[in-house]
């Protein structure tokens, strides 16, 4: 391989045997990431994958980049420390619904609101896979699992709403086997700041088919609202469905074009920079908004850290450790 030969998907695959269950959605996500990296010009040595604990968190071992498989829920904190001292690195956080929304909820909140420049991929399979199938914070009410034999009574959370509420400035959604997933990842990578991507992921062992409605090849298009900035929100096989703002309830509702005189002009137009719109479409009944829900530039944490250091250095005017020790009152004993 000559030095300048473009990298390929294969270059980003490590020599480790991938150990997810056959048919696990994680395989497709791994492939999508490995396909995306060469496209965005990533290098092997400057890319770092940091994960917590869970099935998804095995991810770094399969990447021929730097990787850190840390502890449960804390990956965002490790990534923050790393980015602060090494803003030159391209950092990806890999996490799951349990890792991010149960044990690590606090850290996800803070890495997003600080807008640390990294990509945050949340693999949502609505179940605890690694610990053998308990319900998770995204499981539906009624989910039967070893720890909820009579059905889960916990109200589930909507990950993208948590992200929006935390102040995330890039919020997107995709699903494991989607052809567009690399595009979503590319957009996340391009964004300067914390890019949050929820990836719906099928766990064939403990929660098989939980997203079938959305991801099924035939029925799926009726339930996938792919977003495009500046375009009216339409979906369905022939674009016959749409999303309209109900001015009475201030909520988004699904409508069929042509019915009751509804035309495209009645539909919500997607504005990525509008947090309220992102919120409205984050949790539509039986329909998943996909692609970039929200994107708005803002101060980047690691950048601000650097600016403060620079400012402090300028103000210090060459003060060093020796002058530090002499700050304030000193006296000489002779």
């Amino acid at each position, binding site marked *: 391989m000559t030095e300048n030969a473009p990298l390929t998907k294969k270059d980003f695959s*490590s020599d*480790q045997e991938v150990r997810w269950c056959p048919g696990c959605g994680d395989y497709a996500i791994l492939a999508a990431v490995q396909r995306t990296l060469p496209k965005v010009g990533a290098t*092997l*040595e*400057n890319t*770092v994958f*940091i994960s917590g604990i869970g099935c998804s968190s095995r991810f*770094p*071992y399969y*990447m*021929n*980049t*730097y*990787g*850190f*498989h*840390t*502890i449960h829920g*804390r990956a*965002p*904190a*490790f*990534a*923050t*420390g*790393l*980015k*602060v*001292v*090494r803003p*030159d*690195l391209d950092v990806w956080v890999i996490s799951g619904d349990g890792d991010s929304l149960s044990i690590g909820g*606090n*850290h996800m*909140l*803070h890495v997003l609101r600080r807008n640390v420049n990294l990509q945050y991929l949340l693999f949502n399979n609505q179940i605890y896979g690694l610990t053998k199938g308990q319900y998770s914070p995204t499981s539906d009410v009624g989910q039967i699992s070893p720890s909820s034999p009579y059905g889960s009574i916990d109200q589930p959370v909507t990950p993208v709403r948590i992200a929006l509420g935390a102040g995330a400035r890039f919020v997107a959604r995709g699903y494991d086997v989607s052809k567009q997933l690399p595009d979503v990842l590319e957009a996340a990578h391009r964004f300067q700041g914390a890019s949050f991507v929820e990836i719906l992921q099928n766990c064939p062992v403990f929660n098989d088919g939980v997203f079938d409605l959305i991801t099924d090849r035939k029925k799926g298009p009726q339930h996938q609202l792919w977003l495009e900035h500046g375009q009216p929100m339409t979906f369905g096989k022939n674009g016959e469905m749409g999303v309209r703002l109900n001015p009475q309830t201030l909520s988004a509702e699904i409508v069929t074009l042509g019915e009751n005189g509804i035309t495209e002009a009645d539909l919500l137009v997607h504005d990525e920079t509008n947090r309220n719109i992102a919120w409205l479409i984050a949790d539509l009944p039986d329909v998943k908004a996909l692609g970039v829900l929200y994107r708005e530039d803002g101060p980047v944490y690691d950048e601000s*850290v650097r600016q*403060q*250091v620079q400012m*402090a*250095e300028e*103000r*210090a005017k060459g*003060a*060093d*450790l*020796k002058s*530090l*020790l*002499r700050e*304030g*009152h*000193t*006296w*000489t*004993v*002779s």
Partner: protein
Amino acid sequence: MSDVEKANGTASELPRELLDSVVIRFAGDSGDGMQLTGMQFTTATALMGNDLATFPDFPAEIRAPAGTTYGVSGFQIHFADHDILTPGDAPDVLVAMNPAALKVNLPELKRGGLLVVNTGAFTKGNLKKAGYDTNPLEDGSTDPYRLLDLDISKLSLNAVAELGLGAKDAGRTKNMWTLGLMFWLFGRDRQSTVDWLEKKFAKKPDIAQANILALNAGHIYGESAEMPSGIGVYQVPKAELEPGEYRNIDGNQALAWGLATGGKLASLPVFYGSYPITPASSLLHNLAKLKHLGVTTFQAEDEIAAVCAAIGASFGGAVGVTGTSGPGVALKGEAIGLAIATELPLIVCDVQRGGPSTGLPTKTEQSDLFQAVWGRNGDAPLIVLAAATPGDCFHMAIEAVRLSTKYMTPVVLLTDGYIANGAEPWKLPDLDAIAPFPVHFHTDTEGFFPFQRDPETLARVWAKPGTPGLQHRIGGLEKNQHSGHISYDPDNHHAMVKLRAQKVANVAKDVPEATLELGEAGGDVLVVGWGSTYGSIRQAVQHTMKKGAKVAHLHLRNIWPLPRGLEDLMKSFDKVIIAELNDGQLLKLLRAELLTDAIGHQKIAGQPFRVSELVEMIETHLPGGSDARPSAVA
């Protein structure tokens, strides 16, 4: 000539009684500004050339209900014309700003000691809140002392009346009035406090002026008012300190500066992740000011994020540091284990306080020794160091950086509330004389694997992200000792546990051998201490040695691994006493490790040892004492 100079000129004309050392305790309500008063007295005293040690003692509540005994805040300073190591036992002088302060502190004032009382605060209500049925200033309670009772509340109000301040602001100047009086009594210069007030209240010049007026008024009062008999002015001559440049320093400041210096010596940036906690917060405050010296601070969302971010920084090639107190260390345990498993440098500063749980946040204790040495899941060894004095925090912080980066392992550095907040004059170290220990990152791709080791230290290589060709993955799952790949192999796990232990054990070869601070091997009694009890134990041993006892003092800075030569030294004594501020943690560790027949001496009161109580204790163990070992049967 300024007012201050004039006033100083007058005061210096009075004959001053010579004293070699004085212990003053300032006590008042937590809103009375006693900590500030004490600190200002400390600065002025240091500038006079006295040696000194201080002990701030304040309630956990920021503003406990006014006038109550549990809202009493105290600041003790011991200063002398000779080398001193502790803030002193019983005070010679007590300043009591209200009845509650008197109630709490009077029992400790030396008989015949000077008692300065603000009678203005001795109202019926305050007396009741303090639990007094009768006024102690009138019922003979203060007879054993030399009482100077003044209505400081009123005197300070009068002093600032011309400024027309609100009652609240004017009332707050009484601590400066008192300080002025104390400056006069002990012949201290007011200028450092005037400078400080002008800087602190630069944006509120009337407040600055009020405080300076009150300070001067207190001083002038001393000069001009007739003092009760037995109360005069004093002089404590300069101490014979080693020649050099000095400053006052508290432990957290020294620790912060030591970490910054350690980073420079290692040629690495320092990353400090922390979540505010008493008594470690000022470590974060101090480090946050050092951005120009290669230190980045990160106020994390919680204790766990703080340590994780530090480890992330170490992974990236910085010195990752986190600081906290005992409850925080408990939260960080899992992450520290990860740093042990991934063999990354990490420094955990544990500024200990009373425990368990929230315990006594503002009180000192040495009860995190077990937690530091053993407090993690699995067999998880790391290096444990303990600083002895405020100034020693500087050197131990450097040592922590050196060992952590050389051995690729976490280091827990133990200090405590007592040295973190206590100040002492500190001879500025010669930075050029400290040998640097620059870190060399691994860059060689030839046969690289992440758990490649230095055959001597057993430290693994440090290959940081961004290095071409060295891409690798680390994590908390057990790794194959050669390839670094995940391994569940039973023999490999056994070998890795032993390897991590051996690596930490190797540190003993790299640190000073155990030596006696005082005394000679083979004596009757050896007192072993660690951490902040250094000063009290040393003074107590010195005291008993002077009386001819065969006593010695050994102080541990290396808690884990233990230093070489410790066992032989201990065995050469007839009796070994382990003195510590906990329920016998070092005692149990030494008994387990060295099979030594040591005796424990414990104090678990949230307070440091008094020299006098240690002297008493040592004496009971000396031949002929009540606890002496029965002489061997012939």
